[in-house]
């Protein structure tokens, strides 16, 4: 408890909000690294997951491989990447985080594609959509909820793991924590941890919102319930009953 109070004291100190190691700078670095890593991870995992899911083969193997990849300690990856020509550059951190974010995105994308109602897929094919159209117009929109769950999971994990960047003098909130350790400043350590957790929660909330916004089926449902209430005012009571039944 004391530590928490001290941590708030630390937040209260204007000096900690300025300059190169101030909260805003580190926060911004953190967000930037997370966003870039996540973006890259999506760029790699989504096409692979979509393709494997569409074809319906080899997915389990790919998932297992990427999953077992989680067992490689991220800090070891960081240090190893540090040995490569990437060295001190921010890409060391980003690459390690990309590797870390791949499994959940890949797995969920594959599973999401496989879970698409086979009737919808079959109808799409039967009406003369080609492979790409089936993916774009039917499978992808229907897989969105699960894909977004994967991205969300990865995002939260990456926010937490990005603190390891401090290990190689990288960017982000991890620096506040290591510096706290170096200076034996408990308040700063806890303050750093709070910042990371808060950021993770914000990201989680944001992703949840994004997930809802991006899910076409859900959008459809939401639209319909508001339409239902409009209709209700128009005294179509039966319609409302049904909307409630199917609504949520």
């Amino acid at each position: 408890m004391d530590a928490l109070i001290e941590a708030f004291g630390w937040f209260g100190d204007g000096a900690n909000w300025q300059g190169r190691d101030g909260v805003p700078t580190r926060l911004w670095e953190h967000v930037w690294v997370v966003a870039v890593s996540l973006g890259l991870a999506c760029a790699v995992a989504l096409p692979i997951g979509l393709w494997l899911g569409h074809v319906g083969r080899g997915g389990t193997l790919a998932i297992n491989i990427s999953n077992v990849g989680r067992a490689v300690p991220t800090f070891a990856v960081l240090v190893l990447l540090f040995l490569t020509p990437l060295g001190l550059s921010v890409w060391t951190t980003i690459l390690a985080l990309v590797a870390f974010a791949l499994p959940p995105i890949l797995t969920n994308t594959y599973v999401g594609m496989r879970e698409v109602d086979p009737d919808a897929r079959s109808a799409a094919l039967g009406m003369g959509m080609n492979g790409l159209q089936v993916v774009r117009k039917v499978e992808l929109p229907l897989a969105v909820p699960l894909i977004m769950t994967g991205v969300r999971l990865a995002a939260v994990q990456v926010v937490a793991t990005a603190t390891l960047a401090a290990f190689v003098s990288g960017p982000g909130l991890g620096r506040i924590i290591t510096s706290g350790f170096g200076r034996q400043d408990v308040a700063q350590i806890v303050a750093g941890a709070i910042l990371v957790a808060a950021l993770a929660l914000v990201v989680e909330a944001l992703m949840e919102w994004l997930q809802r916004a991006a899910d076409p089926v859900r959008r459809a449902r939401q639209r319909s319930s508001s339409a239902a209430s409009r209709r209700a005012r128009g005294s179509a009571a039966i319609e409302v009953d049904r909307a409630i039944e199917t609504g949520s």
Partner: protein
Amino acid sequence: MNGPVERHSDDSTEQRMIRLDGVSKTYADGTVAVHELTLDVRRGELVVLVGPSGCGKTTTMKMVNRLVEPTGGRIFVDGRDVTHVDPVGLRRGIGYVIQNVGLFPHRSIEDNVAVVPELVGWPAKRRRERARELLELVGLDPTTHGTRYPHELSGGQRQRVGVARALAADPPVLLMDEPFSAVDPVVRSQLQDEFLRLQDDVRKTILFVTHDIEEAVRLGDRIAVFKQGGVLEQFDNPAAILGAPATDFVADFVGADRGLKRLSVTPVTEADLEHPPVVNLEDELATAGFAMGESNWAVVLDAEGRLAGWVSQEMTTTGTGRVHDHARRMEAWVELDDSLKVAFSEMLQWNAGWIAVLGDGDRYLGVLTPSTLHTALRRSVEADLLDVAPDEVVLETVQDA
């Protein structure tokens, strides 16, 4: 092909819109889904594939639009061998109603219907118009339903959208895989009625799958009965399937009450009618009584020969005045070409021993009684068996006590 009786084999090739020629399908796991199937669907004809679950109906249908590739034989649609055609283009030209509907849950009803027009690149406005027109055609109000999503519709409404979607680009050929299976019997029979009306309008060439023999009998111009392993047991018109099952399997499949089922596919014909005494509304009761002779009732017509009601012998003897003071109004009648089932139902429902039959312009033609109805049915069965017109049939066995 030996085995099933195939009729009308003298059709010109041009007439055959879909032709399966010794087609087989063995799945990768060794399941023989379809075995050397030869079958054709004429232009504008509705052929129903019927059989127990797993007998290869869906597989047969999917081979036509190449969702499943046959492992043997050849398939022609409108004269072209489908294996030499780009499958995507082929499918866009064939309407497809999938088992369980398979609407896209993330698209509005209108967009669902307009999928194929969108694929073939119609402009948005035209797509929209077409979708609305089709929704209306299948009995949905485009204004209230068009902007909804599939989950906001009832099962029956969804089935209708499925049909509308298949019709969107006005394909000459439709494949329909148990399109009405997901709804309860009441809604189903309603959908069937509407569908028949629709087919009268649009006259598509349709391959239709069901496992419900009643549906098959009701909708099909011809019916193909399959048994397990994709073997075609009989391919003929509904009356023949019911009246003269080619094999024990078919007899069993159509059911012990196939005679009753046949009622619904046999129309009332003029030859089947009885002609009880007829009196006129304006006749004096006494004249009417005389006209009745031994019969204890008579049909009453108006001056124009239209049905007005009936009058009993008793009334003519106890009452005075003219027929129209005493005649009872007729509650029900049927028309020529209504099915015997309708006639029988009406009779039972109105608790009547006979029912009047009207022809064009409500002209009174005669009456049907339970005995004549029964005779009519038997005559039609015989006619199908001998392949002659019903009125050429002389019933051999004793008819009446």
